[in-house]
């Protein structure tokens, strides 16, 4: 157990550790993208970008920059040996068809039954924009969420029921936060399906139960928090 909550860098490292060799992975825009910096170069992980590529390499710099080779965040990237390009219907068919092993996404909220909210604040007057968020939520075999556990106001973002507009129902399987890792068993009753598998920075299962208001299962000593490919 760490002595301080994880930094964002440490969170990205922690997520990276759960991505096994050979996994086909989509890293969402923003914080999840940084996970790629911590994938062990000695193990091959095959990154998907929904605008039409598998085998995406690191961000492009200098002469490598090619405006025709970008990721979903519209950042110039590179291609690894073994890469392939395809059109949007094929790319999203790949996602929707359940072929990606893992998607790593940010979230506004996650519910105890794995419902995800990450596309729309629901604020009046805001212009709706969804992009590929809903496709990623329903498509990947495992959906990892990477988020700070509380809002700036101190409210838990892991909740019994979403108050933000839903992106996908029952889709999140694991949540990485600065204070704990949570596993969601969507086959269990919503309230009892959430386990705490790791704690960081002095958080306790009891303190997290209080914060979230959920009857969290203590799995910190029993669960090996690693991911094997299905």
């Amino acid at each position, binding site marked *: 157990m760490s002595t301080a909550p994880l930094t964002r860098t440490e969170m990205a490292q922690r997520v990276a550790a759960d991505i096994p060799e050979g996994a086909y992975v989509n890293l969402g825009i923003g914080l999840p993208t940084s996970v790629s910096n911590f994938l062990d170069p000695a193990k091959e992980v095959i990154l998907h970008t929904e605008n039409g590529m598998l085998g995406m390499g690191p961000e492009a710099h200098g002469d490598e920059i090619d405006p025709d080779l970008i990721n979903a965040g519209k950042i110039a990237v590179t291609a690894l040996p073994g890469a392939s390009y395809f059109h949007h219907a094929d790319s999203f068919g790949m996602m*929707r068809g359940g072929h990606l092993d893992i998607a790593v996404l940010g979230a506004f909220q996650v519910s105890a039954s794995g419902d995800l909210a990450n596309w729309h604040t629901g604020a009046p007057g805001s*212009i709706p924009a969804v992009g590929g968020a809903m496709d990623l939520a329903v498509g990947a075999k495992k959906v990892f969420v990477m988020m700070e556990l509380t809002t700036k106001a101190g409210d838990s973002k892991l909740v019994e029921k979403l108050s933000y507009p839903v992106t996908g129902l029952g889709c999140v399987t694991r949540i990485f936060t600065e204070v704990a890792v949570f596993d969601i068993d969507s086959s269990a009753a919503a309230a009892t399906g959430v386990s705490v598998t790791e704690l960081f920075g002095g958080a306790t299962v009891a303190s997290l139960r209080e914060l979230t208001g959920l009857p969290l299962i203590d799995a910190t000593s029993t669960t090996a928090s690693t991911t094997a490919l299905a």
Partner: protein
Amino acid sequence: MVSKIVDDVDAAVADIPDGATVMIGGFGQAGQPVQLIDALIRHGASGLTIVNNNAGNGEVGLALLIKSGFVAKMICSFPRQIDSQIFDEAYRAGRVELEVVPQGNLAERIRAAGAGIGGFFTPTGYGTLLAEGKESRIIDGRGYVFESPLHADFALIKAHRADRWGNLVYRKTARNFGPIMATAAAITIAQVSEVVPLGELDPENVITPGIFVNRVVLAAGKASS
């Protein structure tokens, strides 16, 4: 002899009428047919419904088309971006209607139109605000939403190379919506960087067969953006 090569971008878009539905390829700048969009602005057809993943960036291309007042409706997945100020303002002023579609459903609706599918059930969006008012169905225990094909009168796309039959290859992630939009429009117009002799494109590697392409125009020189 069949030749789909058209002399210039202005001739290529000259018959797009007011009120047309026009698909425009590209994801961000990659694959955006900027010179065809500029020609469309010069052409001046109004009341257009535009299908694109986004709703324009900066003050060029699609953003400029919106700014020019020619767009009545946008169908897209992600209009709100850091530099989508032109769309944002037009939308808030009520000058442009917006239909937001999840990106994969947008792609699949375009593909369905090209493939003659009357509609399909997709899990994407089920149980969300974007499924409200749509038919939904539980199939094998999973929730799905019914989505309809999305047809267009014209598609403006950007490809890398073409031959005179309209066979196309693309470049890297600039491929994105081009191949499916080409199938979904009554008239598809491709701006390309190079026209090669017939037979030079390897039949194994043609991405868009010429059957889906009506006009090819070599995009020479610099676009406004």
